[in-house]
């Protein structure tokens, strides 16, 4: 049959757990997933229409309406705006003749905002039809839109000024640059993929692997910092005829982009880490969950895995280990920060909305398809390989007491040397600022919006799990930035946009806090408003997942660490100000009936 939607559904064997893939392909093929396609999908895979619709409506990159032959997703996160995003947006709007979050009348061009796309070191950046357009200028925008009008393919609009390393590989061909500024065990040159599997794994029992990982004291690099050896051990002990290894490459925390660089330069190492984890826990299937923003890397990643299959590093009896079968497939996301949360990631991989699950049971007990599942960050898995190679002691000797080993930082914002730095834990914020050549720094956001905003008197604080814990995102703001408006408010909007909406706390409180914040910025704030914000943040602790737990952090940490910014804005002489503006409030009603807006 020659119905493209049906073909796509059959490509995935009418499997409802592959709904994400089906929707991604239909969206790419048809520019949207319309009602007709929704019905076909529901019929073919045997689920209800609302089941299809609820997955469809959850993700940013899916739509039921056409989004244009050329769809521009322009990053609107804080650092993008600092680097001139608004000017680029203005140029797009002017050239295309439509405003953001709409499509031109002829259906040619759609302009849409999107959260951080993992290119903070080369902003302003956009994704157009799955191609990355970093370092945009207004001139480039004019050329791009002109090319769109001439109907040129997106590869032609992009040009051939490819980035370094694998970015210019024939299966990648992207303008993205790695900006690797300091190499360590993950990004070092000269490692031959598979040598740890061949030389070490073949001589070790699963228990020995776990013992070594435990001894290294490595903790997860995805942000939460759970001890990796313990996680693997739990999964190994869990009951289940089938176990899974998930690699979390969702990298949604604004300001982080190190996983993108690892996916580009050390994909084999990631897969090798998954193989090792699989051997340790007894898993036979793996899944690499890659955020949709990095779709441009997928062909290349698949090739790397093919090579590993050919080299007996994936597949049956890996490296000659009798009965050790393991293979990996890639699962693309579709634009949802919360899907980086491990249980939401699992839901998403099962084809559902990315709503975090209640825990317990934890994924190591009941994860993907209810089976024990290890979810690890990209960097964690890479480091596991090097731990087996160099020994637990080698790892433990680096870093600090509670934070062993190395960490890759993604540094962006106001500095001369934005990029990726592989450092040992114990680095201070001052060390970072010196290394990246940043001056007149007003504040630093450590760990992304869910982390902390700190001021100069705390720059001697240490990057480690017990002080400033971070998944690696470091954003620097110099003295010219309006922190509250351009940073804190932007981050609050991010959390509001990305909340999955399950918990009333996380759905409502950040909105109220943001309104308070706006009131303060408009000059109607009082001391009471600051107190209210702090008070209202408390119930967020009772949210289901980390997103809700940390959603107030931008406001709370800025109040705590940079309180003078607020003190300067709030009224000192009044106890109470609702901020109600009668003249603003009657404007619309006056216009509607043609009256002059005068009221007492």
């Amino acid at each position, binding site marked *: 049959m020659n119905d493209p939607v049906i073909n796509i559904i059959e490509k995935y064997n009418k499997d409802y757990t592959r709904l994400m893939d089906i929707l991604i392909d239909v969206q790419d093929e048809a520019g949207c997933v319309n009602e007709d396609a929704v019905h076909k999908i529901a019929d073919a895979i045997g689920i209800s229409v609302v089941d299809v619709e609820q997955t469809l409506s959850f993700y940013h990159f899916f739509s039921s309406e056409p989004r244009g032959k050329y769809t521009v997703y322009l990053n609107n996160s804080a650092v993008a705006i600092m680097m001139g995003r608004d000017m680029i947006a203005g140029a797009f709007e002017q050239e295309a003749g439509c405003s953001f979050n709409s499509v031109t009348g002829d259906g040619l061009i759609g302009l849409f905002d999107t959260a951080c796309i993992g290119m903070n070191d080369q902003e302003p950046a956009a994704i157009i039809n799955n191609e990355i357009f970093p370092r945009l200028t207004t001139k480039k925008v004019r050329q791009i839109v002109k090319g769109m009008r001439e109907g040129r393919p997106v590869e032609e609009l992009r040009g051939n000024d490819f980035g370094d390393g694998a970015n210019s590989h024939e299966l990648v061909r992207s303008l993205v640059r790695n900006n690797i500024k300091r190499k360590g065990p993950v990004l070092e040159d000269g490692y031959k993929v598979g040598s740890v599997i061949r030389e070490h794994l073949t001589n070790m029992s699963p228990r020995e692997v776990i013992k070594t990982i435990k001894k290294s004291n490595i903790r997860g690099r995805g942000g939460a910092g759970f001890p990796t050896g313990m996680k693997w051990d739990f999964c190994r002990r869990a009951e289940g005829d089938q176990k899974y290894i998930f690699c979390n490459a969702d990298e949604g925390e604004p300001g982080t982009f190190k996983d993108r660089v690892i996916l580009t330069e050390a994909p084999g190492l990631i897969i090798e880490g998954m193989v090792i984890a699989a051997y340790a826990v007894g898993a036979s299937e793996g899944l690499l969950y890659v955020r949709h923003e990095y779709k441009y890397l997928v062909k290349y990643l698949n090739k790397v895995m093919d090579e590993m299959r050919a080299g007996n590093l994936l597949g049956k009896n890996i490296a000659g280990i009798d009965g050790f079968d393991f293979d990996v497939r890639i699962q693309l996301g579709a634009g949802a920060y919360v899907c980086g949360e491990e249980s939401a990631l699992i839901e998403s991989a099962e084809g559902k909305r990315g709503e975090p699950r209640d825990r317990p049971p934890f994924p190591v007990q009941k994860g993907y398809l209810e089976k024990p599942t290890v979810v690890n960050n990209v960097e964690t898995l890479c480091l596991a390989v090097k731990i087996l190679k160099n020994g637990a002691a080698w790892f433990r000797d680096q870093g600090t007491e509670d934070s062993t080993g190395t960490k890759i930082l993604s540094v962006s914002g106001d500095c001369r040397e934005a990029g990726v730095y592989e450092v040992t834990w114990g680095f201070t914020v001052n060390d970072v600022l010196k290394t990246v050549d940043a001056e007149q720094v007003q504040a630093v956001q450590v760990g992304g919006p869910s982390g902390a905003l700190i001021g100069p008197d705390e720059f001697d604080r240490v990057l480690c799990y017990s002080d400033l814990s971070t998944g690696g995102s470091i954003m620097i703001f110099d003295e010219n930035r309006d922190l509250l408006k351009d940073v804190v408010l932007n981050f609050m909007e991010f959390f509001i946009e990305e909340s999955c909406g399950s918990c009333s706390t996380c759905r409502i409180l950040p909105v109220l806090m943001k309104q308070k914040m706006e009131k303060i910025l408009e000059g109607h704030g009082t001391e009471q408003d600051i107190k209210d914000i702090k008070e209202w943040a408390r119930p967020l602790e009772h949210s289901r997942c980390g997103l809700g737990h940390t959603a107030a952090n931008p406001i709370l940490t800025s109040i705590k660490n940079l309180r003078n910014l607020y003190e300067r804005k709030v009224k000192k002489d009044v106890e109470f100000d609702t901020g*109600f503006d009668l003249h603003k*409030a*009657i404007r619309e*009603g006056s216009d*509607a*009936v*043609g*009256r002059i807006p005068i*009221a007492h």
Partner: protein
Amino acid sequence: MSKPILATASLAGCFGCHMSLLDIDERILELIELVDFNKSPINDIKKFTRPCDIGLIEGGCCNNDNVHVLKDFRKHCKILVSVGECAIMGGLPALRNGLPVSDCLEEAYLNGPSTKDENPEGIMPNDVELPILLDKVYPCHEVVKMDYYLPGCPPDAELLWGALTALIKGNELELPYEVIKYD
């Protein structure tokens, strides 16, 4: 000692909250022993004639006149209480908050079943004497400071009575389950 002075107003409400106040039945006689009424629809006093102790507000603000009255209450009353869902959250009238004002007016005066054929010239009420609709319905505390909130649609008569007598006598308010359960 003179009695405390009570004032009440209905803004964008349905008068249901005032009805609930009347629901205290014969205790209304007790109430007038306890307080004197000033501006209120209950006695039809239109203007404040003196400072008051307690102001009860039903309904939120949907037009500039509501705002004017509410601010006037704030000026004259020591304690101001949001009574009922509409005053506290905007209530039923706030259902229009997601819509542009012009849509609401067009539905009411141009396209509604009762006006469609009756208003061929498409006249919108725009006399200067009429209040102007606000862009949305505001709960009272978004316009002025409110001191207390009595939930319910309408709040139970027992809740109103309990709250009033507690305020007047300075006692702690007792909130038995029955008066704040809504299903």
